[in-house]
Structures are given as C-alpha cells and as structure tokens.
C-alpha cells in the first residue's frame, strides 16, 4: 500500500478492500473445502455415522427413537459442524498466513465475515445432505409443515457458525485444539439446539400442527446477539 497522508479521506480502493478480502477468503476456503478429501466429504460421512450410531444403539424402529428423531438429526449436524468449524483457521495457522491477514489494512471484521460465510454455507450444505439420509433411515413422513425447515436450518446455521467461527479462532491458541472448540461451543449454543429440535419435531410430527412460534424468535435473538458480539470482539482474537 502507498503511504497516504493521514488526513486524506479513504480512497475508493480502501473502501473496497474489505468486501474484496472477505469474498476472496470465502472463495478460497470453499474451494479447499469441496475439492479436498479431508474437507466436506469426510464431515458428511461422519454426520451419517452419528445418525446411524443412534439407530444401532437404540432398537431400529423403536418408539423412543421415533419420538426423539429430531434430536438425532441435530446431534448429527452439530457433530459434523464442529469438525468443519475446527478447520476454519487451521490452515492459516499452519503456514502462518494468519500473520499476513492481520497485517492487511482493513477492519479484521471483514476477515471474520469471509470465514463466517464459508462456515455458514458449509454447515447449510451439511444439513441439506444429512436431512435426506435422516428421512430415509428414520422413516420420516414429509408433510407440508416441512417448509418450516427452510427457515430453521439457515437460522440455526447462522447461530452455530457465528459462535463457532469466533471460538475456532480462540481454539487455535489452545493446546486442546479441536477439543477446545467443542468445549466452548456446545454449552453456549445449547439454546440454538433446543430451539431447532423443538421446531423440527413440530414440523415432522404426523398429524400435529405448528405452535410455539416463539422458538423462531429465540433463534433470531441468538443470531443477532452473537453475530453482533462476534463481529465486535473478533478484533481482539486475531493476531498476537
């Protein structure tokens, strides 16, 4: 960057560098995630395994499993998602690219935004692909109420990825690595999981109807609070 006098207003180039960096990070990470074998595919397979472990540990087709099926789906998603989230800053730390990122003349919130968008899209994809498997193995009857999932999944994905992206950056400094992320993320995101399970249960229960819309409000509140908090606080997390 050329040195500009401090009094000068930011040029158009300076204004654009933020969104451009966020987009570049998004593009790079999505490519790595979907092209590499250690990325998305492995997580999806792990999600499937978790789903099936529940079938094997319960009696297949038992009433208990049927009643708790929404919970099983979200446990599988939460487990697969934490693996995705754990990789967020791993590559940047390994080759010390994170130092370069923190030297860029822009608000670190843009870097966070790029990473957050990547995680959001990957987690949404995980949900999208685990759901059909869930429908097949748990014999879920699809009714018109399933459209609600089109609202639940993105809302839950925003919540999980904003908390998860921030804590992934925190976990990079811990000796526990991946475990540190799980330890921090799960207790904090319990409200998201409860709300998602409650709403999913209502949308797949045969013969029921949707009540308790307040769970959607709760997801909104969680998303808004943690998205805002993470954007503000990320500044302290990046770099040394």
């Amino acid at each position, binding site marked *: 960057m050329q040195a500009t006098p401090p009094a000068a207003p930011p040029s158009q180039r300076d204004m654009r560098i933020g969104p451009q960096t966020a987009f570049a990070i998004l593009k790079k990470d999505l490519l790595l995630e979907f092209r590499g074998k250690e990325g998305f595919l492995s997580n999806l397979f792990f999600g499937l395994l978790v789903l099936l472990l529940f079938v094997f540990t319960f009696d297949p087709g038992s009433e208990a499993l049927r009643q708790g099926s929404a919970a099983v789906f979200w446990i599988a998603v939460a487990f697969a998602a934490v693996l995705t989230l754990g990789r967020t800053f791993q590559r940047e730390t390994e080759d010390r690219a994170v130092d370069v990122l923190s030297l860029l003349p822009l608000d670190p919130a843009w870097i966070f935004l790029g990473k957050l968008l990547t995680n959001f899209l990957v987690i949404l994809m995980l949900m999208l692909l685990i759901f059909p498997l869930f429908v097949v193995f748990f014999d879920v009857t699809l009714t018109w109420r399933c459209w609600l999932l089109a609202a639940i999944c993105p809302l839950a994905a925003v919540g999980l990825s904003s908390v998860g992206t921030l804590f992934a950056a925190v976990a990079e*400094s*811990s000796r526990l690595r991946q475990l540190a992320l799980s330890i921090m993320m*799960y207790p904090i995101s319990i*409200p998201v999981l409860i709300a998602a399970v409650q709403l999913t249960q209502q949308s797949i229960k045969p013969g029921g109807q949707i009540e308790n819309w307040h769970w959607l409000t709760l997801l909104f*509140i969680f998303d808004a609070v943690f998205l805002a*908090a993470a954007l503000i*606080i990320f500044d*302290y997390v990046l770099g040394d």
Partner: protein
Amino acid sequence: MRFVLLVLLYPAMILTLYCAFIFAPTEAVMGEVQRIFYFHFSVDLVCFLAFFVLFIFSIAYLATGNRKFDIWASSSGEIGVLFGTLAMVTGSIWAKPVWNTWWTWDPRLTTFLILWLIYVAYLLLRANMAESDKKYKLSAVFGILGFIDVPIVWMSIRWWRTIHPVVITSKSINLDPDMKTTMFVALGTFTLLYAVLLNFRVRQRKLDYEITAKWMEA
C-alpha cells in the same frame, strides 16, 4: 485488607453455624434437612456474583490490557465454579429427601447446570493455553460471551420446560422471620468468604507473576 476480612470471617462463620443449626426453627414439613438451604442459597447467589465480577473484569481487561484485571477475572471464575459446584451438591442433598430425586430438569436447575458448564469451559480453556497476553485476551472474550449467553439460556430453558409437564414445581418458601434472618446472615458470611478467597488468590497469583518475572530477568 485481606487480613481484616479474614478476622471478620471467623466470627461470621460461627454466627452462621449458630443461626443455621440452633437459632432458626426446624421446618415443619421438611424437618432438619431444610437447614442446608441457608448454605445452598448463599453459595448459589455468591456464585452468580462471582461470574458477574468475572464479566466486569473481563471487559476491563479488554479495554485497558492491564494484567491485573485478568488476574481478578480468572480468580473470580475459579471461586465461582467452586461455589457453583457446592450449590449443586447441597441442592442435591436437600432434593433427595424432599423431592425424592437427586436432580430434576426444572428451569432453574437446568440453567444453572449450563452456566456451570460454560465456566468450567472457561477454566479448561485457560488451563490449556501458554502464558501470554493472547491468553488473557482470549479468556476475556470467552468470559464476556459466556455471560451474554445467560439470559438467552434462561429464556430457552423456561420455554422448553413449560412445554413438557413439570412434575415438581419450584419450591415456594414462606419464611419465618428467624429463618429470614438466618438466610441473610449466611448470605453475608458467604459473600465475605468469597471476598477473602478472592483477595488471597489474587495476591498469590500476583506473587507468582512477580517471581516469574524476576526469574526471567536473572
């Protein structure tokens, strides 16, 4: 300061024991076991106080970068987890004869358990990071986010538990005046105990810090 607190603590403890076991009348229905309530109630409230102190000092650390605030915040977190554990243990001992169960998924208990999980995570996070400014920064970040989560957790658990039938409703306590006095005496004593523990722990950590700094110089 900390010795003044310590000197005050001894008579306060004896007074609390006297109040809880002799002065306060025996509860008509629950009997003697109800006396554990005074300790349970006090450690529970002081636990919340400790986490609030952690939150405030975490903000102070991020704002100033002063190492002292990190020591205060994390020491308060340690004592908070200790008191939280005690609150759950005393609660269980009380619940077994009275509710006939060690644990129930009542909104208050559930929220408290999640809170406890968050702050154990805070301690684990700290225990597994190399000493550096980064560690203090990151744990302050987690301390702040953990506290922000509390009202949201509370809201979700309350809705969650009202959809399901709640078998055992929360205790309603109409306290006898002597019991109320005992309750406040116990609360005051345990707040004092918290202050004493916090002061000694902070002093210990500061000394530790100074010794390490001297050793690094040599």
